[in-house]
């Protein structure tokens, strides 16, 4: 797959520009993601990768260009924004679970109040996804009582309970202790194998190699390199990419 644009694209980003004050955070970014495609975005810190995926569900407002998600353009229309957020799940670096609710309530609240699902149905869905991320036994605990890896798996389940069509992952393993990274990546691999459209900002190159359809390298607010994983890791063209790869893979 390449980024020639087809009408059925899940996410289409055209000439995206984003400023923080005078700082030019994203420069003319173009990216198209097909349904079912898995994209891994990597790059040095401050390269704009998080900013880019946060623009997709409007946690950041872009200043120029167009973003179309599932055929709806993101603009100032609040109805559009809420509609898109319902279909786009997100997993954060610091989990951001709601600490005043149990694990089960964390998973039930959005389906109940946003999708207006009845309680029983929301609970059944929540338990199914907690099963899927392999922590059904923690349902009645509070987030503060779980390990980082467990919290992140709950966060994935919480996003999945909205039954989104696209999942965004913003450095989901960066805040975890090394021994917990695998349990989160396993869940993500399973999700990928079931055909979810995924855009992952991560430095886990093993995950990228295994799962990604395309790997994107960003630096200085631009997409520098975009290639299928085998090509990306073996024969990348750009000097900056090579330097970055030698740093992440070097030891």
């Amino acid at each position, binding site marked *: 797959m390449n980024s020639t644009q087809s009408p059925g694209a899940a996410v289409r980003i055209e000439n995206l520009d984003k400023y923080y004050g005078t700082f030019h955070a994203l420069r003319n970014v173009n990216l198209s993601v097909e349904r079912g495609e898995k994209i891994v975005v990597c790059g040095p810190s401050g390269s704009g990768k998080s900013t880019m995926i946060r623009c997709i*569900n*409007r*946690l950041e407002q872009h200043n120029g260009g167009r973003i179309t998600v599932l055929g709806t353009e993101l603009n100032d229309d*609040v109805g559009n924004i*809420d509609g898109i*957020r*319902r279909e*786009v*799940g*997100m997993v*954060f670096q*610091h989990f*951001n*679970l*709601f*600490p*005043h*609710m*149990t694990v089960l309530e964390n998973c039930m*609240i*959005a389906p109940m*109040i*946003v999708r207006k699902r009845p309680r029983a149905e929301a609970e059944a869905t929540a338990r199914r996804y907690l099963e899927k991320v392999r922590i059904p036994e923690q349902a009645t605990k*509070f*987030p*503060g*009582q779980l390990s980082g890896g467990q919290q992140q798996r709950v*966060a994935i389940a*919480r*996003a999945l309970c*909205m039954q989104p069509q696209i999942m965004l992952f913003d450095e989901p393993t960066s805040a975890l202790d090394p021994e917990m990274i695998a349990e989160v990546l396993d869940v993500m691999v399973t999700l990928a194998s079931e055909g979810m459209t995924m855009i992952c900002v991560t430095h886990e190159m093993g995950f990228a190699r295994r799962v990604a359809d395309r790997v994107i390298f960003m630096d200085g607010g631009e997409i520098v390199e975009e290639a299928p994983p085998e090509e990306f890791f073996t024969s990348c063209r750009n000097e900056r990419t090579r330097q970055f790869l030698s740093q992440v893979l070097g030891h």
Partner: protein
Amino acid sequence: MEMVVVAPPAPGTLEDLRRRFFATPLQALLSLVSLAIMVLLAWKLLNWAIFSAVFTASGGPEACQAAAGACWSVIAARWRIILFGLYPFEEQWRSALACVTVVVMTVLSCIPAFWTGRRIGLVWAAGAALYYVLMKGGVLGLPYVGEEAWGGLALTLFIFVTTCLIGFPLAICLALLRRSGLPWISRITGIIIDSVRSLPLISILFTFAIVLPFALPQWLVGDKLYRVILGSALFFSAYQAEIVRGGMQGVSNGQEEAAMALGMNYWQRIGRILLPQAMRNALPATINQFVISFKETSLVVIVGFFEILASGNAAYGTGEWRFAYVEVYAFIAFIYFVFVFSLSRYGAFLERRMSVGER
């Protein structure tokens, strides 16, 4: 291999006392002297308050003056004025029932089982209606009693509860407006909050009671009591708004982002995610504010209301019981203590309950 860890034996109570208070001869001496002083003071107090005190009003003030101890007969003779103020004597049972209504309503709304919008709304609507009908009368065969005759504990409770009831939602609105993304809204709200906080409560009460009627059209003036409550609620909300805002600052941005990413709209994010966590953070300061407000109700005396403290003044101020003011104030202090202490303990209970989810 299994290790058996034996904790060092805990010292017995006697041993512990000896170590703390009788470690050296000088320390032992100081401990004994302090103990003697405390026993003496306790004895004096008990002797005054109980053993040599007069409890019944039958002997009149003369019996009191003959006795060495406290004159509790003043309470026995004048408790109705202290509790009910100028409320008509034959109707005072209504004022007593109204006090009970407020207490029951408050206790009910403190029980977690009542924390759903519908139940708490029902409790307050029923409670408020019952209080109003009981106090004001004019229906159901109850004789009419105007607000100017309300007084004592019933008035203190009414002012406190309505101040909180109006002030608390107002405080949350002010806090939300102050963190608005639109700079002119947050700035204007900030100016309002800071202005109200810069004024003494007495001047606000005075303005609302005395000055406002000149500025308002006749149909909007209402009874002085409700204007005073509005003023006191405004004052309460200015302080409480800053407490709520402080609580909101303790909630990380990630919480709101996560709620947004799940598609929740503004009010869902505020009501389900931000406020529950902010109120948990703000709880100790909030209880503090409630306690202060309860005690500040005594300031309404300057605009002519006989709440419990002013009623107490009236209870001993007229002639024969003039000498017994210490007993009257001790009794009023005890009533304040019962309410404020329960409030504080309830705050402690809430803190324990809410900390369940914390690590």
